[in-house]
């Protein structure tokens, strides 16, 4: 498939808005999911670290 020029490629025969609207939103959604997962993992580790530190402190004061 030879597009001839960047303009042709971006214009998509007049349907540029729809085609790129689809591909770009898909990319954004998938990237957002990845980012959300990374943030979720970091949040979990942070929260659990605090939880374990608090638990250690409790055990120390009990003992």
């Amino acid at each position: 498939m030879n597009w001839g020029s960047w303009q042709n490629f971006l214009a998509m025969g007049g349907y540029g808005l729809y085609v790129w609207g689809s591909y770009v939103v898909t990319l954004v959604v998938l990237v957002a999911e990845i980012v959300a997962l990374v943030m979720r993992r970091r949040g979990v580790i942070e929260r659990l670290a605090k939880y374990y530190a608090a638990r250690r402190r409790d055990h120390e004061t009990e003992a």
Partner: protein
Amino acid sequence: MSKSRKFSWYYFSSPQSFYPLAGTLQPWFAALAVLLCAVGLYISFFVAPTDAQQGESYRIIFIHVPAAWMSMFLYLVMGFWSGVGLVLNTRLSSMVATALAPTGALFTFIALWTGALWGKPTWGTWWVWDARLTSELILLFLYIGFMALQAAIDDQRRADKAGAVLALVGVINIPIIYFSVKWWSTLHQGASVSMTGAPTMAKTMLLGMLIMALGFWMYSIAATLARVRCVILERERQTDWVAAEIGGQK
């Protein structure tokens, strides 16, 4: 009495042993996803020819159809692992089912969004009540229902099991819903408006769709593995191995 240690897949059915396995496998699936999607995108833009009737707008099909396939496939997989967790009482299966839902829902959303953007230039309206889009909409409701039910129940085991019953009821209903919606749509609109029909499949188009579907599949596995690792950490926080894992992270 000594017994030779035979490898068994059941070894990985405990969260503790699955966690490192998931961590090791995830980058590989992510890499496969990137590779397959790159090939699929290349085919979709540079190999597949222009369509006679729809011009370039048909290229949306390379996202729309694979996303729709994935949304239905992931629901079946979710139902399967949910059911396994319900029947065999294994925690990890339920965790995997919970981890699958958001990815499935996102693919359903992508199918709906791309369907709307495909419908506008082709049939003039932003929403087309054809069989596939309407079924996808109902599937989105089923996903959201599953996630909402699990979020609303505080007791973890009850949430897992209730979600499993719901997911299994959904799995049984999906063919019924699809068939009903197909009947409804042909009855009211006739076969002229159908996203399943157009355009006629050239070999390159089919190949592109298959490769994108595989790419989406690999992506789903990678995302689910990452999410299930978070779920495992959250739910197993009372165990020593998670404490050691978190200690090692800091």
